[in-house]
C-alpha cells in the first residue's frame, strides 16, 4: 500500500495540549475505523502551524475521505515515492579507493 505525507495547516498547532491531542487522536482513529477500507495511520508530527501526517492507504481519495470525516484540513497530499534512512547508506556501491566502512 502506498504511503502518503499529508500537510495540515493549523495555526497554533504547536500549542495543542496533550489532552487536545488525545481527543484529536480518538477522532482520527474513529475516522479510520469508519472507512471500511484498508488504512493505517502511521504517525503525525506537530510543528508550530502545521501538522505532518504519515498514512498508508490505497489511494489519495481515501486520505481525503479520512480528512473529511475527522474534520481535518488536508492542504497538501503527496505520495511517498521512496523512503530512505541511515541504513540505506549500506546499500551504496563500494568504490575501489574508498576506505572500508567503519563499524
Amino acid at each position: 500500500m502506498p504511503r502518503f505525507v499529508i500537510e495540515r495547516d493549523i495555526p497554533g498547532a504547536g500549542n495543542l495540549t496533550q489532552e487536545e491531542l488525545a481527543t484529536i487522536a480518538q477522532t482520527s482513529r474513529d475516522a479510520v475505523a469508519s472507512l471500511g477500507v484498508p488504512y493505517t495511520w502511521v504517525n503525525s508530527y506537530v510543528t508550530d502551524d502545521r501538522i505532518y501526517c504519515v498514512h498508508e492507504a490505497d489511494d489519495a481519495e481515501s486520505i481525503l475521505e479520512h480528512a473529511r470525516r475527522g474534520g481535518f484540513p488536508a492542504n497538501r497530499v503527496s505520495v511517498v515515492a521512496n523512503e530512505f534512512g541511515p541504513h540505506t547508506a549500506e546499500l551504496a556501491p563500494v568504490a575501489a579507493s574508498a576506505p572500508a566502512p567503519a563499524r
Partner: protein
Amino acid sequence: MTLARRRGATTERLVALPAWPYPEPVDLLERDRERAVLAAAIARAHAGQGSGVAVTGESGAGKSTVLATARAAMREPANAPARFLIGSCDPLWTPRPLGPFRDIGEIAAAAGLGPLLHGLHGLDGLDGEDLALAHLCERIYEVLRDQATVLVVEDLHWVDAASVEVLRFLARRIEAMPLALLVSYRDDEIGPGHPARPLLGDFARLVSLSTLSLRPLSVDGVRTLVEGTSLDPERVHAVTGGNPFFVAEVVKDPSRPLPASVRDAVLARAADVTPEDFEVLQMVAAAPDRLDDRVLPALGVDLPTLRRLDATGLLTRARGGLTFRHELARRAVETTIPPGGAPRLHARLLAALERIEPRDPAVLTHHAIAAHDGARVVKYATQAARQAIYAGSHSEAAAFFETALDHQDAAAPAERAALLLRLANERYMTSRLSEAITQVSATFPLWRQAGDPSGLAAAYNACALYEYYAGRRRQAEAYADRAASVAAAPGHELRDATARAYATARATRGYLAYMRGELALAGQCCAESGRAADQLGQGELALRSQLIQAACAVADGDGDSRALLVEHVETARAHGWDELVSTGHSSLANLDVEQRRHPEAEHVLAESLPFTIERDIPICRHWQTAVRSRLHFARGRWSAAVEDAEQVLEGPGMPLATLWPYLVTALVPLRRGTDGPETHLDAARRLAEQLDEPPRRLAVFSALAERMWMTEQPDPLVTEAAVAELPELAAAAGSVWAAGDLAVWLARLGLLAERPFLVAPPFQLTLDGQHEEAAAWWRRAGEPFAEAMAWCDAADPAARARGIELLDQLGATGTADRQRAALRRDGVSQLPQRPRASTRGNPAGLTNRQLDVARLVARGLTNAEIATRLYISPKTADHHVSAVLGKLGLPTRRAVVVQADELGLV
C-alpha cells in the same frame, strides 16, 4: 481548540472534489439571454461597478445551472481575478440566522462568524463581543469592497431575516462596489409575509438590480435534448412540462418507460441500490442542509458505500458533507421514508450531530422536532433563539421560542413563564404589540404558581411598557403600580431580584408621569427608584432615574438642565447601556423640537436615529422618526416630513409614535390646498385622549383649530372643548409652547377670551399684538410657516402681502389662498399674485435623501465626494444634485453654499 475546518478554503484545494457542487453544465438551451445578463453583471463587477441579478423559476428550471455556467464563462483579467463566493439557504423548520454567510469562509472569518455559532457566550473569535447586525454588515461590506467578487446566494425562499438585512445593505451600496450579487429563488414559495419580500422589492425598484425569470423549455428545446434517442419530443414535453431537470432525468435513461413524475424519474436511478445503501440515501435526504462528513463514522457509512452511491449520480460532496445534487431528488427520496421511520432516522442523526463541535442549534432543532424529542427541542430551540437575537433576527427568534413553548412538556411554571416573557419581547421587537401583551399576561398566573414575586413584578413592568407603546396610558400606569406593589409586598424577603424589580417599576412609573407633565410625581418615583438602585449598586437603574429627572427639569423650562441631560446620555453610552442612551435621545430630541431648538434637534437626531437602527431599538426608532417628521414640518420641509410620517404609519408599528405623523399627514395637504387623508385628525384626537398628555392634546386641538380656520366650518371640538380645556391643559408643566400655539389659533378664530396662563415667548408676542417681532422670532427659529402667519396676523396690508408671498414660496397654496380671501374681505384690492409654478423654487419639496445631498452640497462637496459619502455612483449623485437645484430654484451649487444658512441646511 477544535480543528474546525474553514470549509470554503479547504474544499477548493482537496484534490478529487469538484469545487462546484452543481451538476455538470451541459449545453444550456434557451438560456442565452440569461447568460448574457449574468455575464454582463460579472464583467461590470470587474470594472468596479456593481449590480445584482435575481434568477427565479420553478424547482428544476435550472437556476443553479445557469449560475454555474455564468461562472464557467467568466473571463477574468489575469492581474485581478474575481473571487467567487457561494452561500445557500436550507429548508429548515426555522432558518439559521445568517445561514448563507456562515458558509462563506472569507466572509465568515472577517465577520467573526464561525462556520457554526461557537457557543452562546460570543461569536467565534470574539468572546463576549455582541456583534450587532450593523457591525456585521459593515465588516461584510469591507471584505467585498476591495476585490472584484461574484457573490451567489441561492434559494432565497428559505432565507432568514438577518441575511435579508445584510443583502439589502449590500444592494443599497452595490453601485459603488466591484460586486456582482447573484441570487436565486422560487417565486411561488415567497408569500406576502416572507422575510425576503423587502429584498425582492429592492430588486424591483433599484436601477442596478434586475430579475430574470426562467421559463420551461419549448418543444424544440426538448427535441434537441432527446436527439439521438428514440424518445418522442412532444410526449416528453407533455409529461415533463418542459422542466429541464425532469427532461434531463428522462434523457439519462431513454430506454426506460417514461416516468410519470420527477419523483419516479429520480427513484428509477436508485432502483439498483441495496436496502442498506438506500437507507443511507434516506439519511442524506433527512438532513435539510447536508449530511456532515463528520457524522459518517457515527452513522456507520463507509467509503465503499459512498462509492456505490456515487454510481446513482444523485449525490455530491459540498459544504463539508453529502448532499443531493438537486432538491427535487432529495424530496423524492424523502417521500420514501415510511411515516414511522422518520423519527428514528432523525434521532440517529441528532445523536451523531451532538457529538461534533461546534453545534448548530437551528439544525439540531430541526432534527429534534422531526424526532419528536420534546426536551431537546426546548433546549436547542432556546439556544437557536439566542443566536437569532445576536444576529438581529427577531422574527426567527420568536419562531424558535414558539417552537420551544409548543414542545415544553409540563414544565415548571417559572420556566414556562420565562420563555413566554422572552417570546413577548421578540413580538415587541417585531412591532406585534397586542401579541406581546397577550403573551406577557399569560405569564401572570404562572409566576403566582411558582411563588415568584420578582418574576411577576418584571412581567407587570414589561406589560406596562407595551401598553404605553400601544398608546394606552391608563393600563400602563396600572401595571406599573401593580409591579411596584408586588415587588415591595411584605412577607417576601427583600431579595436582590425583588428590590431590582421594584426599582425598575418605580422608574417606569416616573417616566410615565414625566410624559404627562406630572413633575412632582415623577420626581417622587425617580427618587424612590434611585434610592433602591443605589442600594443594589445598580448603576444603570440609578442613571435612569437621574436622566428622567433631568428631562423633567428641561420640560419645566430650566435651560441649564439640558446640558445635564446630555451628560447623562453620554455616561450611559460610555457604559454601553444602549436602551438608556436611546431613551435619552428620544426625550432630548422631543424637548428640543417642542421648545423650538431646531438646530440642536437636528444634531441629536442625525446621530440618534442611526443608533436606533444599529442597536435594534424599535420603539425609539419609531418615536425619533416621528420627532424628525415634526421637525421637518416645523422647518417647512414638508415632503421630507410626510416621508417620515408615512414611514411611521405604515405597518403595525408603535401607536405611541403615531400622533405627530397623523397631524403632519393631515396638515400638509391642508396647507398645500390638496386632498389629504380624511381620518387622520380624528385618529390623532382619539390617540391623544388615550394618552392623556397635555402637550399632545393641545397639539391636536391646534390642528383642529387650523382646519376650522381654513375650512371656515365651525367645529364643536374647537369652539367648545378646546376653549373649555385650554386653561387646565396650559397649567400642566411643559405645556407653555403647545398652549401658546392653540391660544394663537383660537385668537385668530376670535374664540380666545381671557388668558390666565403662561405661554411661550413667540406666542406671547402675537397675542400682545407685536406681529413684526413675532415674525422675526419665527424667522430666527427657522419656522417659515409660523413666520408667514405672523406677518398675516398684522393689520398692515403690506405685511399681510409679505406673509402671503412667504406662504406661496413654501407651497402652502391652500393657506395662501385663504389669506388672500381674508384680504379681499377686508377691502384690499391689490393682492399678490400666485407665482407661476415654473418660477417657484420649493425647498419644501425636498425628500430626506435630497436633504442629505443638499447639506453636502452646502458644505462644498463635489459629486465624487457626495457619491462616496452616500454609497452611490457619481452618476446617481449627479442626478440628485440636479433634482435638488431644481427644487430649490437655484442655478448653481455655489448658490446653495451661499444661501445655506437661509435654507436651513447647516
